[in-house]
């Protein structure tokens, strides 16, 4: 069931230095977030039907007022908290326990490799993978749900099946694969880290099969529909129905519309594409780098349609 969600960028700062950081956290030496504005945003949206607050950054867990924020969200009566995190802080059992106690029900945890070589070289955090895995185990032990998020890069694309197997083995409920959004830190690494969709499909499809066979929910985020035609039923586009976001002091009323309108473009094949509205198009930075030869319109009405319903394999 899609839920109405309030989304908060709590901090610009992070304890990782991911090559592909979409908000460019490694480029910040000072936090630009005014905490009082976060508090005000949470306060003014309380009792407006939001079913979850999604906290992200940067790395929300390193914010000095992180626990205060969780307490405040709880006191305001929001039913759920979702936390996007690299889970490094959660490797301490006590920290993980406290976070779950304060109401975080879903952890969306970055998992970009299955070995330290693959993960830590991309996150710039030696020892990070092991702590992330400990963090996953700790929150699972507390009964929380875990969704991993794997951003697909040239550095991890061949490892996607192994990363998926690792996620299955540590008990992850939901495995999400994100199409690299080549902005923020990735701007400086475009050619080096951006795979083509042909490269992605070769390893992504077996990875999806591994997750599905293990009974885990698996989704794809930010992919042009025609780039993953055979897995068109896995798009993560209906989990939240209404996302209101506070991002660096700016309120984005409808995050999905924002992404479609300002972060994606339609290329010529999109003109008469049957799934244009659902898909939203492609990242212009990708088109600048690789052109648009890989994209082609979905057939319009009357032609056989791909299955676009949400995946049925779900563990929550």
């Amino acid at each position: 069931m899609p839920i109405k969600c309030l989304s908060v960028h709590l901090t610009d700062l992070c304890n990782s230095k991911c090559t592909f950081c979409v908000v460019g956290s490694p480029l910040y030496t000072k936090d630009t977030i005014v905490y009082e504005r976060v508090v005000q945003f949470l306060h003014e949206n309380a009792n407006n039907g939001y079913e979850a607050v999604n906290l992200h950054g940067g790395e929300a867990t390193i914010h000095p007022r992180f626990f205060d924020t969780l307490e405040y969200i709880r006191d305001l009566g929001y039913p759920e908290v979702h936390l996007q995190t690299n889970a490094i802080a959660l490797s301490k059992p006590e920290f993980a326990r406290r976070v779950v106690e304060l109401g975080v029900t879903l952890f969306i945890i970055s998992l970009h490799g299955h070995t330290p070589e693959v993960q830590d070289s991309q996150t710039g955090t030696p020892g990070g993978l092991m702590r992330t895995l400990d963090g996953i185990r700790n929150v699972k032990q507390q009964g929380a749900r875990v969704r991993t998020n794997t951003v697909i890069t040239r550095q991890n694309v061949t490892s996607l099946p192994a990363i998926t197997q690792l996620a299955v083995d540590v008990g992850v409920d939901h495995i999400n694969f994100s199409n690299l959004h080549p902005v923020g830190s990735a701007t400086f690494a475009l050619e080096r880290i951006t795979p083509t969709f042909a490269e992605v499909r070769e390893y992504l499809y077996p990875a999806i099969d591994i997750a599905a066979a293990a009974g885990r929910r698996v989704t794809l985020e930010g992919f042009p529909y025609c780039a993953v035609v055979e897995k068109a039923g896995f798009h993560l586009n209906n989990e939240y129905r209404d996302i209101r976001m506070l991002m660096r002091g700016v309120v984005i009323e409808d995050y999905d519309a924002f992404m479609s309108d300002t972060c994606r473009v339609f290329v010529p094949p999109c003109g008469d594409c049957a799934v244009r509205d659902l898909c939203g198009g492609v990242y212009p930075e990708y088109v600048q780098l690789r052109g648009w030869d890989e994209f082609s319109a979905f057939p319009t009405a009357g032609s056989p349609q791909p299955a676009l319903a949400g995946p049925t394999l779900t563990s929550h």
Partner: protein
Amino acid sequence: MGIRVAQQLHEAGDEASFVVHERSLPLLTDTPFRRVPIHDHLGPLIKLLIESQIAEEKPDSIILADYFTATVLFLGLGVDPRFLLRFDTPLIAIDTWSHSETGFVIDGYGDRTREVANWIDELPFRLRPAPIVRPVPRPGVCTILPDPVRIARRVRNHVRANIGLTSSDRAVMFCTAQWQYAANNDEEATLLAENVPELLAYYVSKLGNDVHLVHVGPAAYPLSGLLGERYHWLPALSPDQFDMVLGSMDLLLSANISATTNAKAVASSIPVVVVENSCLAGTVEEAEAGLREPPSPFLGEWIRRSLPLYPFRLWPLGFHDFLQPVLQDNSYCTAMEVVELLDEDRVVTVCGGLLNSSAAREDLLQCQAAYAGETARLPTPVEIIESFLSGDAECRSSA
């Protein structure tokens, strides 16, 4: 340049708005300035557009940013730019090239020249920005040396690692703009536009296996054959991102002596090497006659493929002889190393010295600091504009 002046005016509490050709609109992205686009189909109606803008906004002054560009634009639309003198509003020209020194005939491709309409003496006042004019206090001379780029070590490390540089690699930056790819559909200019990056990449390839070329520009060049994974292309960046990359580099290599990036690098203590070409040659023999030594096989082959060669200081447009007077005895040229494109030995020696020898680097950085000191003694454009508008006699005498 116009945007920098507008930003300074904005910071001083003034308002600025632009009447700007549609091609240049992207330059105003993320700026707070009102903009009215000029489309080519407007033709002489541009006069009406400007008249209505002046009637609506009632500005305290009109700034031509710059004299050369505005003159070419108006004449291209079929309008004599002197119509601007009819308004009661004071007219100020940014005289980027210091036309009283450089003149009005610009050398371009081969032996072709282009004449710029000369009406500058009819203007009541002009700003002469350093760089590129000499930083010597004279009426109208102002500093436009940018603020230095300073980035934190953590950011520098992240940017370099993301580009694909290890901690021991050295990075040479090269920047291009759209106009440098195909020059006015001119065959010779386009040939040089295409081939110069290849020669520069060849020079970089000789600097050592740990020296990388970081190219920022609208499109990549096919340089992987020469440099392999030591060639990194970054598409056009936002101003902040551009500064982060510039501030992470060990050397800036430029083929345009007037580029604002050179000035930013000078202000930021980043060594700059500018290549220019003084060789006008239609044959291999003519080209080789000007060399101090016989060319290497690569350079010889490159010359053969790139003929005819024509001189430039603004690659690939030319501007070689045109700029000579303003560069003469100009301390800006001491803040950079200026080398001849075909002098392989010198290009490699100078670049290698700046990358490998702390003494060579230190010498150049001292010259940059001295230049920055000279420009710091000059007034800013805003200070000059304000004194002009308040009727300062000395300013008026600059015309």
